[in-house]
Protein backbone atom coordinates (compact mmCIF):
# COMPACT_ATOMS: atom_id res chain seq x y z
CA UNK A 1 0.00 0.00 0.00
CA UNK A 2 3.00 2.31 -0.23
CA UNK A 3 5.44 3.51 2.41
CA UNK A 4 3.75 6.86 2.87
CA UNK A 5 0.41 5.25 3.67
CA UNK A 6 1.97 2.82 6.13
CA UNK A 7 3.70 5.72 7.89
CA UNK A 8 0.51 7.78 8.10
CA UNK A 9 -1.40 4.75 9.32
CA UNK A 10 1.24 4.09 11.98
CA UNK A 11 1.20 7.68 13.22
CA UNK A 12 -2.61 7.73 13.27
CA UNK A 13 -2.74 4.50 15.28
CA UNK A 14 -0.20 5.77 17.83
CA UNK A 15 -2.03 9.09 18.23
CA UNK A 16 -5.35 7.35 18.74
CA UNK A 17 -3.75 4.83 21.09
CA UNK A 18 -2.44 7.47 23.47
CA UNK A 19 -5.36 9.87 23.07
CA UNK A 20 -7.33 8.66 26.13
CA UNK A 21 -4.24 9.05 28.35
CA UNK A 22 -4.07 12.77 27.66
CA UNK A 23 -7.68 13.71 27.17
CA UNK A 24 -9.97 13.16 30.12
CA UNK A 25 -13.68 13.63 30.22
CA UNK A 26 -16.48 11.79 28.54
CA UNK A 27 -17.33 14.72 26.30
CA UNK A 28 -14.15 14.63 24.23
CA UNK A 29 -14.09 10.87 24.22
CA UNK A 30 -17.60 10.69 22.88
CA UNK A 31 -16.77 13.18 20.13
CA UNK A 32 -13.84 10.97 19.16
CA UNK A 33 -16.15 7.96 19.17
CA UNK A 34 -18.57 9.78 16.86
CA UNK A 35 -15.70 10.67 14.55
CA UNK A 36 -14.71 7.00 14.47
CA UNK A 37 -18.26 5.88 13.69
CA UNK A 38 -18.64 8.49 10.95
CA UNK A 39 -15.19 7.66 9.61
CA UNK A 40 -16.25 4.05 9.04
CA UNK A 41 -19.25 5.07 6.91
CA UNK A 42 -17.31 7.76 5.10
CA UNK A 43 -14.47 5.37 4.17
CA UNK A 44 -16.99 3.18 2.38
CA UNK A 45 -18.50 6.23 0.69
CA UNK A 46 -15.05 7.36 -0.37
CA UNK A 47 -14.48 4.04 -2.13
CA UNK A 48 -17.88 4.38 -3.80
CA UNK A 49 -17.77 8.07 -4.72
CA UNK A 50 -14.15 9.16 -4.73
CA UNK A 51 -12.71 6.06 -6.34
CA UNK A 52 -15.52 4.51 -8.37
CA UNK A 53 -17.37 7.77 -9.07
CA UNK A 54 -20.86 6.58 -8.05
CA UNK A 55 -23.11 8.76 -5.91
CA UNK A 56 -25.31 7.50 -3.09
CA UNK A 57 -27.88 9.82 -1.53
CA UNK A 58 -29.21 7.24 0.90
CA UNK A 59 -26.34 5.89 2.90
CA UNK A 60 -27.91 6.88 6.20
CA UNK A 61 -30.46 4.13 5.48
CA UNK A 62 -27.74 1.47 5.71
CA UNK A 63 -26.55 3.11 8.90
CA UNK A 64 -30.13 2.78 10.07
CA UNK A 65 -30.47 -0.86 9.03
CA UNK A 66 -27.34 -1.68 11.04
CA UNK A 67 -28.51 0.34 14.02
CA UNK A 68 -32.08 -0.99 14.05
CA UNK A 69 -30.94 -4.61 13.68
CA UNK A 70 -28.53 -4.14 16.58
CA UNK A 71 -31.27 -2.42 18.58
CA UNK A 72 -34.49 -4.24 17.77
CA UNK A 73 -33.26 -7.81 17.57
CA UNK A 74 -31.67 -7.97 21.06
CA UNK A 75 -34.36 -5.83 22.73
CA UNK A 76 -37.49 -7.36 21.23
CA UNK A 77 -36.42 -10.81 20.07
CA UNK A 78 -33.62 -11.74 22.43
CA UNK A 79 -30.91 -12.11 19.80
CA UNK A 80 -27.31 -11.96 20.96
CA UNK A 81 -25.50 -8.74 20.12
CA UNK A 82 -23.17 -10.45 17.68
CA UNK A 83 -25.96 -12.27 15.81
CA UNK A 84 -27.92 -9.04 15.58
CA UNK A 85 -24.84 -7.32 14.17
CA UNK A 86 -24.46 -10.04 11.53
CA UNK A 87 -28.17 -9.78 10.68
CA UNK A 88 -27.63 -6.05 10.09
CA UNK A 89 -24.75 -6.76 7.73
CA UNK A 90 -26.73 -9.42 5.90
CA UNK A 91 -29.81 -7.23 5.51
CA UNK A 92 -27.72 -4.28 4.34
CA UNK A 93 -25.97 -6.42 1.76
CA UNK A 94 -29.27 -7.80 0.45
CA UNK A 95 -30.81 -4.33 0.25
CA UNK A 96 -27.72 -2.90 -1.42
CA UNK A 97 -27.79 -5.63 -4.05
CA UNK A 98 -31.49 -5.13 -4.62
CA UNK A 99 -30.83 -1.46 -5.45
CA UNK A 100 -27.52 -1.88 -7.21
CA UNK A 101 -28.21 -4.74 -9.57
CA UNK A 102 -30.99 -3.02 -11.55
CA UNK A 103 -29.59 0.53 -11.38
CA UNK A 104 -25.86 0.03 -11.82
CA UNK A 105 -26.32 -1.88 -15.04
CA UNK A 106 -27.49 1.42 -16.50
CA UNK A 107 -25.18 4.28 -17.33
CA UNK A 108 -25.78 7.64 -15.66
CA UNK A 109 -26.87 8.77 -12.24
CA UNK A 110 -29.60 6.22 -11.63
CA UNK A 111 -27.94 5.07 -8.43
CA UNK A 112 -28.22 8.55 -6.90
CA UNK A 113 -31.95 8.67 -7.64
CA UNK A 114 -32.59 5.11 -6.52
CA UNK A 115 -30.71 5.55 -3.23
CA UNK A 116 -32.57 8.81 -2.59
CA UNK A 117 -35.86 6.91 -2.85
CA UNK A 118 -34.54 3.98 -0.88
CA UNK A 119 -33.43 6.27 1.96
CA UNK A 120 -36.91 7.75 2.20
CA UNK A 121 -38.60 4.33 2.16
CA UNK A 122 -36.38 3.04 4.97
CA UNK A 123 -37.02 6.24 6.94
CA UNK A 124 -40.78 5.74 6.60
CA UNK A 125 -40.47 2.09 7.64
CA UNK A 126 -38.58 3.07 10.80
CA UNK A 127 -41.35 5.56 11.59
CA UNK A 128 -44.33 3.37 10.80
CA UNK A 129 -43.42 -0.06 12.17
CA UNK A 130 -44.46 1.11 15.62
CA UNK A 131 -44.50 -2.27 17.35
CA UNK A 132 -41.02 -3.21 16.24
CA UNK A 133 -39.06 0.02 15.89
CA UNK A 134 -40.93 2.14 18.41
CA UNK A 135 -41.85 4.58 15.64
CA UNK A 136 -41.05 8.29 15.91
CA UNK A 137 -40.49 8.07 19.66
CA UNK A 138 -37.58 5.74 19.07
CA UNK A 139 -36.22 2.62 20.66
CA UNK A 140 -34.45 2.69 23.98
CA UNK A 141 -32.70 0.23 26.26
CA UNK A 142 -30.31 -1.16 23.67
CA UNK A 143 -27.71 -3.22 25.54
CA UNK A 144 -24.06 -2.20 25.45
CA UNK A 145 -21.49 -4.49 23.88
CA UNK A 146 -19.88 -7.26 25.90
CA UNK A 147 -17.69 -10.14 24.79
CA UNK A 148 -17.16 -13.11 27.09
CA UNK A 149 -18.04 -11.10 30.15
CA UNK A 150 -15.87 -8.14 29.11
CA UNK A 151 -18.05 -5.08 28.85
CA UNK A 152 -17.37 -2.17 26.50
CA UNK A 153 -19.58 0.19 28.44
CA UNK A 154 -17.05 2.80 29.52
CA UNK A 155 -16.10 5.65 27.20
CA UNK A 156 -12.44 4.65 26.98
CA UNK A 157 -13.15 1.03 26.18
CA UNK A 158 -15.72 1.93 23.55
CA UNK A 159 -13.28 4.44 22.09
CA UNK A 160 -10.72 1.68 21.60
CA UNK A 161 -13.31 -0.72 20.18
CA UNK A 162 -14.63 1.77 17.62
CA UNK A 163 -11.22 2.92 16.51
CA UNK A 164 -9.79 -0.61 16.34
CA UNK A 165 -12.60 -1.49 13.92
CA UNK A 166 -12.09 1.76 12.02
CA UNK A 167 -8.34 1.14 11.66
CA UNK A 168 -8.92 -2.44 10.49
CA UNK A 169 -11.41 -1.23 7.89
CA UNK A 170 -8.97 1.50 6.90
CA UNK A 171 -6.25 -1.10 6.29
CA UNK A 172 -8.72 -3.19 4.30
CA UNK A 173 -9.69 -0.15 2.22
CA UNK A 174 -6.08 0.87 1.58
CA UNK A 175 -5.30 -2.68 0.48
CA UNK A 176 -8.23 -2.63 -1.91
CA UNK A 177 -7.24 0.77 -3.30
CA UNK A 178 -3.70 -0.38 -4.02
CA UNK A 179 -4.71 -3.53 -5.84
CA UNK A 180 -6.09 -4.47 -9.22
CA UNK A 181 -9.57 -3.96 -7.77
CA UNK A 182 -8.73 -0.39 -6.78
CA UNK A 183 -7.35 0.30 -10.23
CA UNK A 184 -10.48 -1.17 -11.81
CA UNK A 185 -12.65 1.12 -9.65
CA UNK A 186 -10.68 4.19 -10.62
CA UNK A 187 -10.76 3.11 -14.25
CA UNK A 188 -14.57 2.97 -14.09
CA UNK A 189 -14.47 6.55 -12.80
CA UNK A 190 -11.96 7.64 -15.44
CA UNK A 191 -13.58 6.18 -18.56
CA UNK A 192 -16.29 3.59 -18.39
CA UNK A 193 -16.04 2.71 -22.06
CA UNK A 194 -12.27 2.16 -21.93
CA UNK A 195 -12.53 0.14 -18.72
CA UNK A 196 -15.11 -2.09 -20.38
CA UNK A 197 -13.00 -2.46 -23.53
CA UNK A 198 -9.97 -3.44 -21.42
CA UNK A 199 -12.00 -6.25 -19.91
CA UNK A 200 -13.26 -4.74 -16.67
CA UNK A 201 -16.75 -5.98 -15.86
CA UNK A 202 -17.92 -2.46 -15.03
CA UNK A 203 -21.36 -3.22 -13.60
CA UNK A 204 -20.00 -6.04 -11.44
CA UNK A 205 -17.42 -3.74 -9.86
CA UNK A 206 -19.93 -0.96 -9.29
CA UNK A 207 -22.23 -3.43 -7.53
CA UNK A 208 -19.39 -4.84 -5.43
CA UNK A 209 -18.21 -1.45 -4.22
CA UNK A 210 -21.74 -0.29 -3.48
CA UNK A 211 -22.41 -3.39 -1.37
CA UNK A 212 -19.06 -2.92 0.39
CA UNK A 213 -19.90 0.68 1.24
CA UNK A 214 -23.32 -0.39 2.54
CA UNK A 215 -21.59 -2.95 4.80
CA UNK A 216 -19.28 -0.26 6.20
CA UNK A 217 -22.32 1.89 6.98
CA UNK A 218 -24.08 -1.04 8.64
CA UNK A 219 -21.07 -1.65 10.90
CA UNK A 220 -21.09 2.04 11.83
CA UNK A 221 -24.84 1.91 12.53
CA UNK A 222 -24.46 -1.05 14.90
CA UNK A 223 -21.65 0.69 16.77
CA UNK A 224 -23.79 3.80 17.02
CA UNK A 225 -26.78 1.93 18.45
CA UNK A 226 -24.76 0.20 21.15
CA UNK A 227 -23.01 3.42 22.11
CA UNK A 228 -26.03 5.71 22.42
CA UNK A 229 -28.38 2.83 23.49
CA UNK A 230 -31.27 4.84 22.01
CA UNK A 231 -32.18 5.24 18.35
CA UNK A 232 -34.88 7.16 16.51
CA UNK A 233 -35.63 7.68 12.79
CA UNK A 234 -34.26 11.25 12.25
CA UNK A 235 -30.71 9.99 12.89
CA UNK A 236 -31.00 8.02 9.66
CA UNK A 237 -32.80 10.49 7.41
CA UNK A 238 -31.91 12.30 4.23
CA UNK A 239 -30.08 15.07 6.09
CA UNK A 240 -27.60 12.55 7.50
CA UNK A 241 -27.08 11.01 4.06
CA UNK A 242 -26.19 14.45 2.72
CA UNK A 243 -23.96 15.15 5.70
CA UNK A 244 -22.01 11.94 5.08
CA UNK A 245 -21.67 12.85 1.44
CA UNK A 246 -20.41 16.30 2.46
CA UNK A 247 -17.75 14.71 4.64
CA UNK A 248 -16.37 12.91 1.59
CA UNK A 249 -16.51 16.02 -0.59
CA UNK A 250 -15.11 18.45 2.01
CA UNK A 251 -12.21 16.18 2.89
CA UNK A 252 -11.40 15.36 -0.70
CA UNK A 253 -13.09 12.23 -2.00
CA UNK A 254 -10.33 10.96 -4.23
CA UNK A 255 -8.29 10.04 -1.17
CA UNK A 256 -9.44 7.91 1.72
CA UNK A 257 -7.33 10.10 4.04
CA UNK A 258 -9.27 13.10 2.81
CA UNK A 259 -12.50 11.31 3.66
CA UNK A 260 -11.24 10.65 7.19
CA UNK A 261 -10.29 14.29 7.56
CA UNK A 262 -13.73 15.30 6.32
CA UNK A 263 -15.40 13.01 8.87
CA UNK A 264 -13.29 14.55 11.62
CA UNK A 265 -13.90 18.15 10.67
CA UNK A 266 -17.63 17.90 10.06
CA UNK A 267 -18.16 15.99 13.30
CA UNK A 268 -16.21 18.51 15.40
CA UNK A 269 -17.41 21.68 13.66
CA UNK A 270 -21.00 21.72 14.98
CA UNK A 271 -19.66 21.27 18.53
CA UNK A 272 -17.55 24.43 18.27
CA UNK A 273 -20.30 26.36 16.53
CA UNK A 274 -22.58 25.95 19.54
CA UNK A 275 -21.07 29.17 20.88
CA UNK A 276 -22.92 31.03 18.13
CA UNK A 277 -26.27 29.76 19.41
CA UNK A 278 -29.04 30.39 16.86
CA UNK A 279 -26.61 31.32 14.10
CA UNK A 280 -24.71 28.04 14.15
CA UNK A 281 -26.39 26.60 11.03
CA UNK A 282 -25.73 29.82 9.15
CA UNK A 283 -22.02 29.84 10.00
CA UNK A 284 -21.80 26.12 9.31
CA UNK A 285 -23.17 26.77 5.83
CA UNK A 286 -20.78 29.64 5.21
CA UNK A 287 -17.78 27.51 6.21
CA UNK A 288 -18.85 24.67 3.92
CA UNK A 289 -19.35 27.06 1.03
CA UNK A 290 -15.98 28.69 1.63
CA UNK A 291 -14.24 25.32 1.64
CA UNK A 292 -15.91 24.26 -1.59
CA UNK A 293 -15.16 27.60 -3.25
CA UNK A 294 -11.53 27.88 -2.25
CA UNK A 295 -10.62 24.18 -2.05
CA UNK A 296 -12.82 22.51 -4.66
CA UNK A 297 -10.77 19.34 -4.44
CA UNK A 298 -11.20 19.13 -0.69
CA UNK A 299 -9.30 20.18 2.38
CA UNK A 300 -6.58 17.55 2.08
CA UNK A 301 -5.59 18.69 -1.41
CA UNK A 302 -5.99 22.34 -0.37
CA UNK A 303 -3.70 21.88 2.61
CA UNK A 304 -1.04 20.15 0.49
CA UNK A 305 -1.08 23.06 -1.91
CA UNK A 306 -0.77 25.56 0.96
CA UNK A 307 2.10 23.63 2.58
CA UNK A 308 3.97 23.48 -0.74
CA UNK A 309 3.42 27.20 -1.21
CA UNK A 310 4.80 28.03 2.24
CA UNK A 311 7.85 25.82 1.67
CA UNK A 312 8.61 27.66 -1.55
CA UNK A 313 8.52 31.06 0.15
Amino acid at each position, binding site marked *: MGKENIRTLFILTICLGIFPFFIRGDYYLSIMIFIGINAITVMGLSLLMGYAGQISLGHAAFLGIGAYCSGVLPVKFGFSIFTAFLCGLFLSAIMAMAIAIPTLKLKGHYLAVATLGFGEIIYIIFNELLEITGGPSGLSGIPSIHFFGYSFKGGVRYFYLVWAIAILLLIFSLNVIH*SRIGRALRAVHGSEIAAEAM*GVNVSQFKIQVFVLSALYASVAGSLYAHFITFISPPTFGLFVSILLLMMVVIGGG*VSIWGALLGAGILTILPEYLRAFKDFDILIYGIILMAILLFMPEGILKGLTVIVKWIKKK
Partner: protein
Amino acid sequence: MDKEKIVTPPILETSRLRKTFGGLMVIVDLSFTVMSGQIKAIIGPNGAGKTTLFNIITGILPPTKGTIQFKGKEINGEKPHCIAQKGISRTFQTVELFGNMTVLENVMLGRHIRTKMGLIQSGLRLPGVRSEERFISETAKEKLDLVGLMQKANEPASGLPLGEQKLLEVARALATDPQLILLDEPAAGLNETEILRMAEIIRKIRDRGITVLLVEHHMDLIMGISDEIVVLNYGLKIAEGTPEEVKKDQKVIDAYLGVEIEYA
Protein backbone atom coordinates in the same frame (compact mmCIF):
# COMPACT_ATOMS: atom_id res chain seq x y z
CA MET B 1 3.94 -16.16 -48.47
CA ASP B 2 0.44 -15.63 -49.77
CA LYS B 3 -0.12 -19.36 -50.02
CA GLU B 4 0.74 -19.82 -46.34
CA LYS B 5 -1.87 -17.28 -45.30
CA ILE B 6 -4.59 -19.01 -47.23
CA VAL B 7 -4.01 -22.23 -45.31
CA THR B 8 -4.40 -20.70 -41.83
CA PRO B 9 -8.00 -19.89 -40.82
CA PRO B 10 -8.95 -16.22 -40.49
CA ILE B 11 -8.62 -14.71 -37.02
CA LEU B 12 -11.57 -12.41 -37.66
CA GLU B 13 -14.38 -12.85 -40.11
CA THR B 14 -17.48 -10.74 -40.53
CA SER B 15 -20.26 -11.92 -42.73
CA ARG B 16 -23.07 -9.76 -44.05
CA LEU B 17 -22.68 -7.40 -41.13
CA ARG B 18 -25.24 -4.63 -41.03
CA LYS B 19 -25.80 -1.71 -38.67
CA THR B 20 -28.62 0.78 -38.84
CA PHE B 21 -29.24 3.79 -36.62
CA GLY B 22 -32.94 4.49 -37.09
CA GLY B 23 -33.36 4.79 -40.84
CA LEU B 24 -29.67 5.37 -41.48
CA MET B 25 -27.68 2.38 -42.68
CA VAL B 26 -24.13 2.85 -41.40
CA ILE B 27 -22.73 -0.55 -42.37
CA VAL B 28 -24.16 -2.38 -45.34
CA ASP B 29 -23.81 -6.16 -45.47
CA LEU B 30 -20.09 -6.03 -44.87
CA SER B 31 -18.12 -9.25 -45.25
CA PHE B 32 -14.37 -9.33 -44.86
CA THR B 33 -11.70 -11.45 -43.21
CA VAL B 34 -8.53 -10.68 -41.30
CA MET B 35 -5.79 -13.31 -41.45
CA SER B 36 -3.67 -14.12 -38.46
CA GLY B 37 -0.41 -12.14 -38.39
CA GLN B 38 -1.61 -9.50 -40.86
CA ILE B 39 -1.69 -5.76 -40.67
CA LYS B 40 -5.01 -4.90 -42.24
CA ALA B 41 -6.30 -1.39 -42.73
CA ILE B 42 -9.79 -0.03 -43.17
CA ILE B 43 -9.96 3.26 -44.99
CA GLY B 44 -12.71 5.43 -46.30
CA PRO B 45 -14.07 8.96 -46.10
CA ASN B 46 -15.42 10.33 -42.80
CA GLY B 47 -18.76 8.79 -41.99
CA ALA B 48 -17.92 5.58 -43.84
CA GLY B 49 -18.73 3.54 -40.73
CA LYS B 50 -15.19 2.66 -39.67
CA THR B 51 -15.43 3.51 -35.98
CA THR B 52 -18.92 1.98 -35.85
CA LEU B 53 -17.40 -1.22 -37.20
CA PHE B 54 -14.81 -1.19 -34.41
CA ASN B 55 -17.51 -0.59 -31.83
CA ILE B 56 -19.44 -3.57 -33.17
CA ILE B 57 -16.43 -5.88 -33.20
CA THR B 58 -15.55 -4.96 -29.60
CA GLY B 59 -19.13 -5.39 -28.41
CA ILE B 60 -19.86 -1.77 -27.56
CA LEU B 61 -22.66 -1.73 -30.16
CA PRO B 62 -24.73 -4.74 -31.20
CA PRO B 63 -24.94 -5.42 -34.94
CA THR B 64 -28.38 -5.13 -36.53
CA LYS B 65 -27.75 -8.19 -38.69
CA GLY B 66 -24.94 -10.53 -39.63
CA THR B 67 -22.22 -12.28 -37.67
CA ILE B 68 -18.69 -11.75 -36.45
CA GLN B 69 -16.43 -14.71 -35.88
CA PHE B 70 -13.23 -14.55 -33.88
CA LYS B 71 -11.01 -17.61 -34.35
CA GLY B 72 -13.96 -19.47 -35.80
CA LYS B 73 -16.38 -18.69 -32.96
CA GLU B 74 -19.25 -16.27 -33.09
CA ILE B 75 -18.78 -13.26 -30.80
CA ASN B 76 -21.61 -10.90 -31.77
CA GLY B 77 -23.86 -9.86 -28.93
CA GLU B 78 -21.25 -10.56 -26.28
CA LYS B 79 -20.34 -7.93 -23.72
CA PRO B 80 -17.20 -5.83 -24.33
CA HIS B 81 -15.35 -7.24 -21.34
CA CYS B 82 -15.98 -10.82 -22.52
CA ILE B 83 -14.65 -9.98 -25.96
CA ALA B 84 -11.56 -8.40 -24.38
CA GLN B 85 -11.13 -11.60 -22.38
CA LYS B 86 -11.18 -13.62 -25.61
CA GLY B 87 -8.24 -11.64 -26.97
CA ILE B 88 -9.44 -8.55 -28.84
CA SER B 89 -8.19 -5.21 -27.57
CA ARG B 90 -8.42 -1.72 -28.96
CA THR B 91 -7.51 1.95 -28.83
CA PHE B 92 -9.91 4.85 -29.30
CA GLN B 93 -10.14 7.57 -31.89
CA THR B 94 -10.84 10.15 -29.21
CA VAL B 95 -8.33 9.14 -26.57
CA GLU B 96 -10.01 7.33 -23.68
CA LEU B 97 -7.31 7.17 -21.02
CA PHE B 98 -7.88 7.02 -17.30
CA GLY B 99 -6.82 10.61 -16.63
CA ASN B 100 -7.08 10.12 -12.88
CA MET B 101 -4.34 7.46 -12.95
CA THR B 102 -0.63 7.50 -13.68
CA VAL B 103 0.85 6.35 -16.97
CA LEU B 104 2.02 3.08 -15.43
CA GLU B 105 -1.32 2.47 -13.68
CA ASN B 106 -3.11 2.86 -17.01
CA VAL B 107 -1.05 0.03 -18.46
CA MET B 108 -1.38 -2.01 -15.26
CA LEU B 109 -5.16 -1.81 -15.69
CA GLY B 110 -4.63 -3.56 -19.00
CA ARG B 111 -3.42 -6.59 -17.03
CA HIS B 112 -6.77 -6.74 -15.26
CA ILE B 113 -8.23 -9.60 -17.30
CA ARG B 114 -5.08 -11.71 -17.08
CA THR B 115 -5.06 -11.61 -13.27
CA LYS B 116 -7.65 -12.77 -10.80
CA MET B 117 -7.37 -11.55 -7.18
CA GLY B 118 -10.82 -10.41 -5.98
CA LEU B 119 -12.06 -7.74 -3.59
CA ILE B 120 -11.80 -9.81 -0.41
CA GLN B 121 -8.41 -11.31 -1.29
CA SER B 122 -7.01 -7.89 -2.14
CA GLY B 123 -8.48 -6.23 0.95
CA LEU B 124 -7.03 -8.86 3.27
CA ARG B 125 -3.72 -9.07 1.35
CA LEU B 126 -4.04 -12.84 1.21
CA PRO B 127 -1.03 -14.80 -0.06
CA GLY B 128 -0.58 -14.36 -3.76
CA VAL B 129 -1.72 -10.74 -3.92
CA ARG B 130 1.77 -9.33 -3.59
CA SER B 131 3.35 -11.61 -6.19
CA GLU B 132 0.49 -11.01 -8.60
CA GLU B 133 0.87 -7.27 -8.14
CA ARG B 134 4.60 -7.54 -8.89
CA PHE B 135 3.82 -9.58 -12.00
CA ILE B 136 1.28 -6.94 -13.14
CA SER B 137 3.73 -4.13 -12.70
CA GLU B 138 6.59 -5.97 -14.46
CA THR B 139 4.54 -6.85 -17.55
CA ALA B 140 3.11 -3.33 -17.61
CA LYS B 141 6.61 -1.83 -17.55
CA GLU B 142 7.64 -4.07 -20.41
CA LYS B 143 4.75 -2.77 -22.55
CA LEU B 144 5.54 0.78 -21.56
CA ASP B 145 9.12 0.23 -22.62
CA LEU B 146 7.94 -1.05 -26.01
CA VAL B 147 6.22 2.25 -26.79
CA GLY B 148 9.05 4.26 -25.22
CA LEU B 149 7.16 5.86 -22.32
CA MET B 150 9.09 4.28 -19.46
CA GLN B 151 10.58 7.56 -18.24
CA LYS B 152 7.06 8.98 -17.79
CA ALA B 153 5.71 6.00 -15.85
CA ASN B 154 4.73 7.94 -12.73
CA GLU B 155 3.27 11.03 -14.37
CA PRO B 156 -0.50 11.50 -14.51
CA ALA B 157 -1.81 10.20 -17.84
CA SER B 158 -3.87 13.34 -18.44
CA GLY B 159 -0.68 15.42 -18.54
CA LEU B 160 0.85 13.70 -21.58
CA PRO B 161 0.85 15.37 -25.00
CA LEU B 162 -1.56 13.81 -27.51
CA GLY B 163 1.10 11.79 -29.33
CA GLU B 164 2.18 10.09 -26.14
CA GLN B 165 -1.41 9.56 -25.03
CA LYS B 166 -1.97 7.60 -28.24
CA LEU B 167 1.13 5.51 -27.57
CA LEU B 168 -0.03 4.92 -24.03
CA GLU B 169 -3.36 3.62 -25.32
CA VAL B 170 -1.45 1.16 -27.50
CA ALA B 171 0.62 0.01 -24.50
CA ARG B 172 -2.53 -0.41 -22.42
CA ALA B 173 -4.20 -2.45 -25.16
CA LEU B 174 -1.09 -4.63 -25.50
CA ALA B 175 -1.09 -5.29 -21.76
CA THR B 176 -4.28 -7.32 -22.17
CA ASP B 177 -2.29 -9.90 -24.21
CA PRO B 178 -4.50 -9.57 -27.28
CA GLN B 179 -4.32 -11.77 -30.35
CA LEU B 180 -6.04 -9.06 -32.36
CA ILE B 181 -5.56 -5.36 -31.72
CA LEU B 182 -7.82 -2.69 -33.23
CA LEU B 183 -6.21 0.71 -33.64
CA ASP B 184 -8.67 3.53 -34.30
CA GLU B 185 -6.80 6.32 -36.10
CA PRO B 186 -3.50 5.88 -34.27
CA ALA B 187 -1.86 8.64 -36.30
CA ALA B 188 -4.58 11.30 -36.02
CA GLY B 189 -3.17 14.46 -34.51
CA LEU B 190 0.43 13.25 -34.61
CA ASN B 191 3.31 15.04 -36.34
CA GLU B 192 5.48 13.32 -38.96
CA THR B 193 8.15 12.10 -36.49
CA GLU B 194 5.49 10.70 -34.19
CA ILE B 195 3.81 8.96 -37.13
CA LEU B 196 7.09 7.24 -38.04
CA ARG B 197 7.42 6.12 -34.43
CA MET B 198 3.85 4.81 -34.46
CA ALA B 199 4.49 2.91 -37.73
CA GLU B 200 7.57 1.34 -36.17
CA ILE B 201 5.56 0.25 -33.13
CA ILE B 202 2.74 -1.18 -35.24
CA ARG B 203 5.31 -3.32 -37.11
CA LYS B 204 6.81 -4.44 -33.79
CA ILE B 205 3.35 -5.47 -32.60
CA ARG B 206 2.84 -7.55 -35.75
CA ASP B 207 6.30 -9.11 -35.33
CA ARG B 208 5.19 -10.30 -31.91
CA GLY B 209 2.50 -12.33 -33.63
CA ILE B 210 -0.38 -9.98 -32.87
CA THR B 211 -2.77 -9.30 -35.72
CA VAL B 212 -3.43 -5.61 -36.33
CA LEU B 213 -6.61 -4.10 -37.74
CA LEU B 214 -6.45 -0.35 -38.10
CA VAL B 215 -8.55 2.54 -39.24
CA GLU B 216 -6.54 5.45 -40.52
CA HIS B 217 -6.59 8.46 -42.84
CA HIS B 218 -2.86 8.97 -43.18
CA MET B 219 -2.21 7.42 -46.61
CA ASP B 220 1.59 7.17 -46.36
CA LEU B 221 1.28 5.25 -43.11
CA ILE B 222 -1.45 2.96 -44.49
CA MET B 223 0.30 2.23 -47.76
CA GLY B 224 3.60 1.71 -45.99
CA ILE B 225 2.60 -0.83 -43.36
CA SER B 226 -0.57 -2.60 -44.44
CA ASP B 227 -0.64 -6.06 -45.94
CA GLU B 228 -4.21 -5.58 -47.07
CA ILE B 229 -6.74 -2.76 -47.20
CA VAL B 230 -10.53 -2.64 -47.10
CA VAL B 231 -12.12 0.50 -48.50
CA LEU B 232 -15.51 1.55 -47.14
CA ASN B 233 -17.79 4.21 -48.53
CA TYR B 234 -21.08 4.95 -46.76
CA GLY B 235 -20.86 1.59 -45.02
CA LEU B 236 -20.38 -0.30 -48.26
CA LYS B 237 -17.20 -2.21 -49.11
CA ILE B 238 -16.05 -0.84 -52.44
CA ALA B 239 -12.64 -2.53 -52.64
CA GLU B 240 -10.36 -4.94 -50.88
CA GLY B 241 -6.81 -5.99 -51.64
CA THR B 242 -3.15 -5.13 -51.36
CA PRO B 243 -2.14 -1.45 -51.22
CA GLU B 244 -1.15 -1.58 -54.93
CA GLU B 245 -4.46 -3.05 -56.01
CA VAL B 246 -6.48 -0.59 -53.98
CA LYS B 247 -4.55 2.42 -55.26
CA LYS B 248 -5.40 1.54 -58.86
CA ASP B 249 -9.06 0.78 -58.22
CA GLN B 250 -11.21 3.30 -60.06
CA LYS B 251 -14.02 3.19 -57.47
CA VAL B 252 -11.57 3.97 -54.68
CA ILE B 253 -10.08 6.86 -56.60
CA ASP B 254 -13.54 8.30 -57.24
CA ALA B 255 -14.80 7.94 -53.71
CA TYR B 256 -11.78 8.62 -51.60
CA LEU B 257 -8.33 9.09 -53.04
CA GLY B 258 -9.29 11.65 -55.66
CA VAL B 259 -8.03 11.90 -59.19
CA GLU B 260 -4.56 13.24 -58.60
CA ILE B 261 -2.86 10.53 -56.59
CA GLU B 262 0.69 11.08 -55.53
CA TYR B 263 1.35 7.48 -54.67
CA ALA B 264 0.89 5.93 -58.08
